[in-house]
Every structure is written in structure tokens, then in C-alpha cells.
């Protein structure tokens, strides 16, 4: 400790003269009055509701009357025996297992491409980043129109290639995949930005060293670039998975879970049960199933990431 530091600390801790000063100088009071308002709001709208929803999942509640009846595990039992809920889990997992890898591979590929000093690269970047400014609802309306079975442009393009008209979002077989495509398009800007930022942090010396060792561009990418993108990849995998498991707005706007429940995902299911059929207990139980699923998947991804990803200091 330097000499002047001791003097400073002494000045800070000088004994307050009056009782009032002792209270106002108290770090506890200062700390709580600064953090208090924020902590109160978080407690009111996040911490308290968290425990309440756990209680709610063991109750029967119709959102309208204040009385709630304790029903034990009945809501979870109902979920386990509802084929639509098991289908919702399956659809959510299919969607996630397509959306996340496609976004990662696509985002990485495009980020590498726009990380080069070529002509018009600024235009390309703008065209990709523009999706950041476009809301999910707007995206969904655009894709609804592009894939319209009767007048949609995508069918016209398919027609040029000799493929017959498709039903897309009106087809039980295709609807979920159209939503995957729509979201890969909508999220590309985000994945590319994260990867581009990481790519620009790769030290140039490493590329020079790889070139001296006579590495081909592909093996440079595989052995130098990709490992250094590890933290970005881990972040994206977890972030995209969490968002994918919470898929809702796209489904609500385009298909309302249909046709024939083909796009009913977990959040759509719990929205429908809670706010359209007024079974809040069942909705809360479904939300808790979702929560444990998200937690489990994120932890697995983190665990794999810990073993594979190397952080440079």
C-alpha cells in the first residue's frame, strides 16, 4: 500500500460527527437507496412471479376469479397425456435442431465471406444487417405473402424450375420448415454480426504463421480460425437455442399452430391454454416444462462448450 492511499482511506472513513451524518454516510443506506427501486421492480415482476407460477402449476385458475383450487400434479399429468402437448414438444425440438445449426453454419460462412476486402463489401454487409431492423411480425407478413399458395412468388419460381405449386404454410408437412427458413433469414444479420466481430479479433500474426507453415486456406480455417471462434460459437448456440425454444410470434401470425396442430410449439400451446382457454394452471405447468427444458439444454451446451472451447487470455 502506498502512503497516500492510506491517507485517502482515512479521509473516507473519518468518523462522522453527528448521528444524522452517521446514517446518511452509512454505506448500507446508500447502497439500498441506489439499488432499491430496481431491485423492487425486478422482485415484483420476475422473482415473485417465478415462485408464484410454480405454485400456479399445481392449482386450477381461470385468470378471471381470484380463487384458485389446489390440484396437486393434475396439470402435469394432463400435459403428459395430451398428445397435442407431446406434439408441441416434438415440433419445438425439430424447429430448434434445424434453426440453430443452419443459422450457425450459414452465419459463419457469410461472415467469412464479408470479412474480405473485396468490392462492394459494404453493400453486402448492409443487405445482411438490414434484418436487424425488421421485426418478427413484419418478417412473418412478408413470408406469408411470398409463400402464398395461389399468388405467391415462390411458387412462380418453383414453376420456372418445373416444380408444381406447393401449399407451404397451409401444408401440414411443410409449414414448420417454412417457419425455419423465415427465421434463418430473419436472424442471419445477428449471427453474421457476432461472427464478424469475432473474426476481426483473430490476430493477423496467426494467419501469417499459418501461411509460413504452408497451410491451405481450408486447413487455416479449420485449425486456426474456427477454434478461435469457439467462444462466439458457444454464445450463439446457447442464445439461438434459448430463442428457438421460445418460438411464438411467427407461429401466432402465420399459422396459429395449424394446420392440424402441425406448427403448435410449446409457447403457442401454453399461450392458447392460458389466454384462449383460460386454464392458467395448465399453462403454468407447460411453462415450467419449458423452463426445465431450456435450463437442461443450455447446461448440456455449456458443458460441451467447456470441453471444446478454448478461451485465449
Amino acid at each position, binding site marked *: 500500500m502506498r502512503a497516500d492511499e492510506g491517507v485517502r482511506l482515512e479521509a473516507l472513513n473519518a468518523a462522522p460527527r453527528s448521528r444524522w451524518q452517521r446514517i446518511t454516510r452509512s*454505506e448500507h443506506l446508500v447502497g439500498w437507496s441506489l*439499488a432499491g427501486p430496481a431491485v423492487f421492480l425486478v422482485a415484483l*415482476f420476475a*422473482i415473485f412471479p*417465478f415462485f*408464484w407460477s410454480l405454485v400456479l402449476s399445481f392449482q386450477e385458475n381461470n385468470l378471471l376469479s381470484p380463487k384458485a383450487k389446489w390440484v396437486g400434479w393434475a396439470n402435469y399429468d394432463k400435459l403428459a397425456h395430451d398428445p397435442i402437448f407431446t406434439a408441441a414438444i416434438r415440433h419445438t425440438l425439430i424447429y430448434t435442431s434445424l434453426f440453430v445449426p443452419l443459422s450457425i453454419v450459414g452465419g459463419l460462412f457469410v461472415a467469412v465471406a464479408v470479412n474480405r476486402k473485396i468490392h462492394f463489401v459494404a453493400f453486402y454487409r448492409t443487405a445482411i444487417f438490414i*434484418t*436487424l431492423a425488421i421485426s418478427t411480425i413484419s418478417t412473418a407478413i412478408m413470408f406469408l405473402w411470398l409463400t402464398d399458395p395461389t399468388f*405467391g412468388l415462390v411458387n412462380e419460381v418453383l414453376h420456372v424450375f418445373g416444380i408444381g405449386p406447393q401449399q407451404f404454410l397451409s401444408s401440414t408437412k411443410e409449414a414448420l420448415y417454412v417457419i425455419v427458413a423465415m427465421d434463418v433469414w430473419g436472424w442471419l444479420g445477428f449471427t453474421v454480426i457476432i461472427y464478424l466481430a469475432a473474426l476481426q479479433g483473430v490476430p493477423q500474426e496467426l494467419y501469417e504463421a499459418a501461411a*509460413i507453415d504452408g497451410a491451405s486456406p481450408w486447413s487455416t480455417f479449420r485449425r486456426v480460425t474456427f477454434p478461435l471462434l469457439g467462444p462466439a460459437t458457444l454464445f450463439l448456440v446457447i442464445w439461438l437455442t434459448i430463442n428457438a425454444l421460445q418460438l411464438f410470434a411467427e407461429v401466432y401470425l402465420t399459422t396459429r399452430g395449424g394446420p392440424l396442430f402441425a406448427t403448435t410449439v410449446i409457447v403457442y400451446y401454453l399461450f392458447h391454454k392460458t389466454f384462449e382457454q383460460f386454464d392458467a394452471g395448465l399453462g403454468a405447468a407447460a411453462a415450467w416444462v419449458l423452463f426445465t427444458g431450456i435450463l437442461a439444454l443450455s447446461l448440456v451446451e455449456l458443458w460441451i462448450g467447456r470441453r471444446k472451447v478454448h478461451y485465449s487470455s
Partner: protein
Amino acid sequence: VSEQVIVRTEEPRRFQQPPTKRRRLPFSNWHLLLFPLMFVMLFPLIWMVITSIELPREAHQFPPVLIPDHVHWQNYPDALKAAPFGRFFLNSLVVSLTVVAGNLVLCSLAGYAFARVRFVGAEIVFILLLATLMVPFQVTMVPAFLIVKWLGLHVSPAIGIDSLGALILPSFVQVFGIFMLRQFFRTLPVELEEAARIDGASRLGVLFKIVLPLSLPALSTLAALMFLFSWNDFLWPLIVIQTQQHQTVQLGLAYFQGAHVTEWTLLMAGNVMSLLPMLLVFFLAQRYFVRSVATTGLKG
């Protein structure tokens, strides 16, 4: 011939200069990938704009009319007549700006307390706050709805069901913001703050005169992210708002779509109008926009 080969391999190779590529094309091969990609990214937007200036009968043709005979602006006034987009904008703007302001003020205060002030319970409360980041919104959504309903009945209708206050209040403080600002404040040199306190400045004085002016990059990033989050929010407005006069842009657009399912020209005009403000912001501040997402994305 064999002699020449030996001589060549024994020459020191110059690695500093990249080997010149044989080029088949007058431009980089990457354009072959990027040009079609740019087309794919922009086409849905271009097609939306084209449809929005077509006559309904042009939109309802197969094969589609790629370029209409003349520009039919009438869809825009028609869309404005069919739904109060101005009102939606105003609502979204009020909600988003208030959420941004709330987060800037309250997250700064709390972030500073957790970064610098040692007060009783700070560690446990901070861990509790961080834990809420793990919980998806759908879990707390139903109780939050019941709380808002109760607040509307017992405190004030201005924060009850079907009010803008109900859209603002639950987002007024985001734990992410507290965490981000705390991390940022901890990187600032503490000596500056100590010096000011020796000179008699209060904690608040230090925060407002020294810490916050040094934190403008973090604050502006937080503002941009909160604005985007609030502007694009859909599920919470969907369950809380019941009348058209309180709908936000996203909610209004969704209802507009539901009411005019097959009127594509009208829908696209509405969609273009709803996108214009954000696109404008994007083009004016692309660099800043991108940096905000990139930096917090990795730290978040």
C-alpha cells in the same frame, strides 16, 4: 530440368508476399456467393414495396406482376384509413422511450451500487437478480398478468390491463442492464471516484459527474438494445392490450393482418409504413447499431 528444380527448392521462399492467385474471373470468387445472397436478403423487402404500389388485381394474378404499369400510391392512404398506424407509432414510441429512460436511470443507480458500494445483502441480491436471467419470460408471464390486473384494480388503471403503463412497468428495469452497467463501471479507475469523494462529493455526485460521463458508450448501447427489445416486443402486448387505441406497432400490424388476410396490397402498404422508422434509424446509424449488437452480444 532436374537441376533447375533442385535450385528452385533451395532458394529461400518469400512468405511475406502472398502467392499471386491464378484468376479465372475478373472479380473475386466470393461475389458468386455474395451477390445471390444479397438478392435473397433484399428481395422480400423489395417485393413488399412493389406489392404495396400495385393495384389489387395486379397482386392477384398468377404469374405475379413483377413490375406494375404505374405506381398506385392509393394503398397507403387506404391502409391508414383501415387502421390508425399513427396511433400505433405514438404508442410504441411512448412505451419504448419510457422503457429506455427507466432502464438508463434505474440500471445506472443499481449497477453503480453493485459495482462500488458495499452494503448488506448486496451479494445475495445480485446473485438472485442474475438468476432471473435464466428464467424465460413465459414462466413469469401469467403471474405478471395477474399482478398487472391487481394493480389496475387497486392502485391505478394507468398501470392496469389495457394500458400503456402495463407495457412499460415490467420492462422498466431489465436485469441485463443492471448487469451490463455494473460490469462496465467496474472497469473504470476507482482512483478518480476516491479523489472526488475526498473533495467532498457525495455518492450521487460521483455517479453523475464522473462515472456516467465516462460510461456514455455503455449507456448508448444499452439504450439501443432496450429500444429494439421494446419496439419489437409482441407476446406481452398481445396478452395485456385489449383495445385498438393502446396497440403498439407490432400488435396493430398483427391485428391488421388478421382483419385483411387476402388484401395483400393493403397489408404490404401497412407493413412498409410500420418498418420505415426502424429502417430510417438503421440507415442513419448502421455502424453504431451494428457495434451495439456485436459488443453486448458477446458479453451478454
